[in-house]
């Protein structure tokens, strides 16, 4: 909900951005931050906002796992192949991969809580555990995204070549059941 009290769904990323996959990652991170802000607000409210909760639930259930695959099975392996010793990338990627594994577990706990709230038609603040589950998850997400934006994506911009970016964009699209963004029709 915004200040007018009207529900605004989580923004979708325009498909054109698949042609610039690193920008897609930045945009996806922006959405993650937005979802965290929405979750924090929901965790402090006893009002049952079904639309907002369902929107966040779908994000955690579908978009977040896809994003982890985008990074774990695509961007990070590409970086491992392209980076130079000076980039000292392995430690950062190793840390982020370990965080991804934890993120998925923490996201599972958040999802379960939201599912319960939806089933019982209660605001999240009415669950005593809401704050202790949601707040650490959101804080961790923000830290994680900050490292990716500040370290990983700038190195990727520097190291990945044109062919890497095209194949990366094609796989981001395919993973979401979308057409090849680099064909003329796209």
């Amino acid at each position: 909900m915004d200040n007018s009290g009207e529900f605004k769904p989580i923004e979708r990323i325009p498909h054109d951005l698949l042609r610039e996959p690193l920008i897609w990652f930045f945009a996806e991170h922006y959405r993650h931050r937005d979802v965290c802000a929405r979750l924090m607000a929901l965790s402090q409210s006893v009002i049952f906002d079904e639309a907002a909760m369902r929107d966040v639930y779908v994000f955690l259930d579908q978009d977040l796992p896809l994003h982890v695959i985008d990074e774990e099975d695509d961007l990070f392996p590409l970086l491992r192949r392209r980076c130079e010793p000076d980039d000292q990338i392995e430690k950062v990627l190793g840390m982020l991969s370990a965080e991804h594994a934890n993120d998925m577990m923490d996201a599972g706990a958040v999802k379960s809580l939201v599912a319960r709230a939806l089933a019982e038609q209660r605001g999240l603040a009415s669950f005593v555990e809401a704050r202790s589950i949601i707040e650490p998850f959101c804080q961790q997400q923000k830290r994680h995204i900050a490292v990716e934006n500040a370290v990983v994506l700038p190195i990727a911009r520097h190291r990945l070549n044109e062919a890497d970016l095209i194949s990366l964009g094609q796989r981001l699209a395919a993973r979401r059941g979308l057409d090849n963004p680099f064909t003329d029709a796209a």
Partner: protein
Amino acid sequence: MIRTLLENNMQWASARVRAEPDFFRRLSAQQAPEYLWIGCSDSRVPANEIVGLDPGELFVHRNIANLAPPRDMNFLAVLQFSIEVLKVRHIIVCGHYGCGGVRAALDTQRRGLIDHWLQPVADLAHRHEDHLKEIADFDTRVNVACEHNVRAQVEYLGHNPFVADAWRRGQKLAIHGWIYSIRDGLLRDLDLSVERSRDVDRLASRAWFPDG
């Protein structure tokens, strides 16, 4: 139920004939695949299906952890037949992330005969132990080792006498290293392709990790 498989088969054959009446007549007349696929036995990596090829278009060898072992008679027979008789143009070594064989080679649990089969993967991991242990997350370590295992098989193949002889004869033959993710059904080209001995030497001198 086992009978379901036979029923499925009847439906599959019938659908193929409906779509292309000559399909099986054409298929039985000759086998001329352009590709040899060396992949993992994992049931979630169906070779023909993931590359969209029909029966007859892909010669397939699968084993646990997609190995190209230089002393395995089964593998060597497949390799020689595919190069010298079928005259395939491409050999694809395809690993997959999260490979159970690679995972088993990286842990210390004893499983019996499979440990011997996976010894080359364990040896490879041992050679790169210092680097691999820097990767804190075990799943990621396994995935990196899966990629390295593909590279090692491409290099073994590049040094195999059947392959070397084919290149010496001037036969067109390229070896590629790919990896598949079961999580999204997509293949990744690992940029390991070689089509002459010189390429293999160049590949062998390439660093295995970003930091050397």
